[in-house]
């Protein structure tokens, strides 16, 4: 039931390349917008007035990873973070490609040498009790500095490693960063070592930029691990309920979270309507289908994540106004390890993809309402998706039939040197799967598909968390096919969707490798290097071409462009935020 959405992290190699999402002053030219949401809660009506007041209850089985803005990195944490914290920039529910100024007063000013970013802080934003004072630029500076401390443990440091003075390793305690200066209370300046300003500015949407008051937090941050997590203060319309000392009494780890209105939030400084008075979240539901059932038939309820198949069916077929589908912003695939014989032969890989019943794999996750069958890698909602062919894709024959085509497959096997059209060798391929559904089910489908072509599979199930960190990401373990692989956005940029997973130079031989197929095509690498220096339309077209190239290299079997379905009761006006793929509390209202 848990949908742990791991968010991609740019490796420091990538950080050296420019990232263009919203160039200074210009508007984003992404033709595919983030609003491919379908279903009852149409995105257009999401911001047009709702009833003020009321209590929404969200039933869930996943707890936040952390409340601490410097530490959180998962969907569950983001869903609480964005309504309670004001990051410098943020995303409105109807547009997950163009960030809007939130704590910032205006768009970031980027110097012409791309080495300086100046951001103006909006006046009139206050911290919640017990801090109670106005937010200054120093609070944002402190938030960045504490992120790098081992006590806080920020999980995406590489996005900001180009800031002058940014530590290269977690610091003991909170150390100042020379490259971040605050000339006055409403201004913050980031000086970079390299011309990375566009990329760093784009990353300012992440939780790291939520302000943290030093005089209040430093005593918590002195502990290792920091205890600010249970003492967070808010700047958004809502806050985790706390007492006079700042203890987050509304947070019961593994049980529930209670969000109440932030009395110091000034509506006039914010674009959020914040209709609800209170949001009560449970985080320990033991049965997903019961929870989903309660949501669909009850009152003022919502579900934290995708409902199980039966309730999904119910919602989609009979309760049209009670759900929204958001693009998951990622792709799920079975990487074929190109360093292991016979998978090193491109014709063998094409045969495997051609024979694969990808529809069956998707069904193991819940069928066509949980995602679309991909024809390339960049998913809907990411710039470059349309340019790479959209839903129809570049049109390669081995990806044409989602149910698999044995004739095409046999032809490729023959080309690969197996005249019978099936594999006749002796290699036993290691397939690692999670030991719980849906990972377990989808891996069993993969096994069956491979065996169709005559491959012998060594099938191993391991705990969910271990699939990646102990096996698939460790080249030494020689995993031929990873049974549970996916890659999801941090924000909408094609480079971050393809580079870490398919660039030869990014293969990490000792572990933590994300190029699971270990694709090492010098032509692809060169194209990536070139494309990373481009801006605007040219950039998008270049990355779309790279997507086509990668697909032609057949490094993996893509089987799912994820869709997240969020359901709610019939007396709820649910609004989903496609940036973090969950219900947006600041925009949802009751009927």
């Amino acid at each position: 039931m848990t949908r742990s959405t791991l968010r991609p992290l740019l490796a420091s190699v990538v950080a050296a390349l420019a990232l263009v999402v919203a160039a200074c002053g210009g508007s984003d030219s992404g033709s595919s917008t983030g609003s491919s949401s379908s279903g009852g809660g149409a995105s257009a009506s999401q911001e047009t007035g709702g009833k003020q007041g009321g209590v929404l209850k969200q039933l869930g089985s996943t707890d936040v990873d952390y409340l601490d803005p410097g530490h959180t990195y998962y969907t569950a944490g983001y869903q609480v973070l964005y309504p309670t914290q004001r990051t410098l920039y943020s995303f409105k529910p109807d547009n997950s490609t163009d960030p809007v100024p939130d704590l910032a007063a205006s768009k970031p000013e980027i110097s012409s040498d791309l080495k300086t970013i100046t951001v103006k802080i909006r006046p009139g934003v206050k911290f919640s009790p017990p801090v109670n004072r106005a937010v200054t630029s120093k609070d944002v500076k402190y938030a960045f500095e504490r992120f790098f401390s081992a006590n806080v443990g920020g999980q995406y440091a590489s996005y900001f490693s180009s800031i002058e003075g940014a530590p290269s390793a977690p610091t003991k305690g909170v150390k100042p960063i020379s490259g971040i200066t605050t000339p006055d209370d409403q201004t913050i300046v980031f000086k970079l070592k390299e011309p990375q300003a566009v990329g760093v500015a784009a990353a300012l949407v992440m939780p790291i930029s939520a302000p943290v008051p030093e005089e209040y937090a430093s005593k918590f941050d002195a502990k290792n691990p920091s205890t600010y997590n249970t003492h967070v203060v808010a700047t958004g319309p809502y806050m985790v309920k706390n007492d006079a000392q700042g203890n987050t009494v509304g947070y019961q780890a593994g049980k529930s979270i209670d969000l109440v209105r932030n009395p110091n939030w000034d509506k006039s400084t914010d674009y959020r309507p914040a209709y609800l008075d209170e949001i009560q979240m449970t985080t320990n539901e033991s049965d997903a289908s019961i929870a989903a059932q309660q949501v669909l038939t009850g009152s003022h309820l919502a579900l934290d994540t995708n409902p199980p198949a039966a309730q999904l069916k119910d919602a989609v077929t009979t309760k049209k106004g009670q759900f929204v589908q958001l693009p998951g912003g990622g792709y799920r695939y079975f990487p074929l390890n190109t360093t292991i014989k016979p998978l090193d032969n491109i014709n063998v890989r094409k045969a495997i993809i051609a024979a694969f019943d990808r529809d069956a794999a998707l069904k193991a996750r819940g069928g066509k309402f949980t995602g679309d069958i991909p024809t390339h890698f960049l998913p809907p909602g990411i710039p470059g998706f349309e340019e790479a062919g959209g839903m129809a894709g570049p049109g390669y024959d081995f990806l044409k039939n989602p149910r698999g085509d044995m004739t095409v497959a046999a032809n490729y096997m023959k080309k690969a040197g197996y005249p019978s059209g099936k594999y006749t060798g002796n290699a036993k391929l290691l397939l690692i799967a999670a030991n719980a559904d849906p990972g377990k089910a989808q891996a069993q489908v993969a096994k069956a598909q491979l065996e169709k072509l005559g491959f012998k599979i060594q099938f191993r199930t391991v705990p969910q968390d271990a699939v990646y960190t102990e096996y698939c990401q460790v080249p030494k373990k020689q995993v031929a096919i990873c049974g549970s692989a996916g890659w999801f956005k941090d924000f909408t940029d094609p480079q971050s969707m393809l580079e870490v997973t398919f660039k030869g130079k990014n293969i990490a031989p000792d572990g933590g490798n994300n190029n699971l197929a270990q694709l090492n095509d010098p032509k692809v690498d060169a194209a990536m290097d070139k494309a990373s220096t481009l801006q605007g339309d040219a950039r998008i077209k270049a990355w779309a071409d790279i997507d086509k190239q990668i697909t032609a290299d057949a490094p993996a079997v893509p089987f799912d462009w994820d869709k997240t379905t969020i359901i709610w009761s019939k007396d709820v006006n649910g609004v989903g935020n496609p940036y973090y793929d969950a219900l947006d509390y600041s925009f949802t209202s009751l009927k």
Partner: protein
Amino acid sequence: MGPYIIRRILYMIVVLLFVIAITFLIFFILPTADPAALRAGRSPTPETLKAIREQLGLNHSLPEQFWLYVKGLVLHFDFGNSFINDQDVRGLIFDRLPNTLFLITGAAILWFTFGVLIGTISAVKTGTFLDRATMTTALVAISAPVYWLGLVALYLFASDIGRFPILPGNGAYQDAHGFFAKIPTLILPWIVLASAFAAIYARLTRSNLIEVMSEDYVRTARAKGLTERRVVIRHGLRAAITPVVTILGLDLGILVGGAILTESVFGIPGVGRLAYDAIQRGDLATIQGTTLFLAFAVVFMNLLVDILYAFLDPRVRY
């Protein structure tokens, strides 16, 4: 008696220390995720991993970690913090303990009462059709897997999904607040959990009682003119029930961790389920804490039962 108890307690401590040591060992061959890698986000630098390992205390050698753990346990009664969400393990366990205890105690009362009752009746009516029918039914109850019974019970009787909705189903336990509100939600779990045990206890009582009833002193009691009822209850049952009570104690000790199957099916957040989830996530601190606690429950009940036995049976001398 005193020195015996002290010896047993010391022995118990030694056993528990061994349990901790072996759990450490097992953890190290568990192919679960590196807890440091899990908390480091994606593509972490080696320095970040090192820093997190230090924070979790994983950079120490195995014996060192063992020593630190025992020290924390003995000096502060500190079970460490969960690797997953930093929660205090002791809190996690004690939070869930009441749920498990509620479940198994209620079931125990049910199965003991019914088991002994049915077993006694069967023993008295040995050889009759009633006796055979009861014992065979008991065997059926023992033969059915408890989780399957649970699913069938839910399918038939759960108020939200059952064919004959009369009792609260899965998940209802958590939604109910307060001791009395929780009782109806436990009726199905109690019945399901108790059925196999009731059958076992019925059979046990029956065979014990039959044996006791053929003893000389029972014959004497009858000869003295006591009513059959008195003979059975005051003389027969009293002797026959002692071993059953001791087994009850042992079963309760084991069930603190062993009720996981029932807990899973009915959505009751218990200690067994906590241990299971911890093992799947490779959360060493929680694995340690729960294993230790569950072992303690078993050993403690063993000790209690032995002491009780020594009290009840004057022939036992230590």
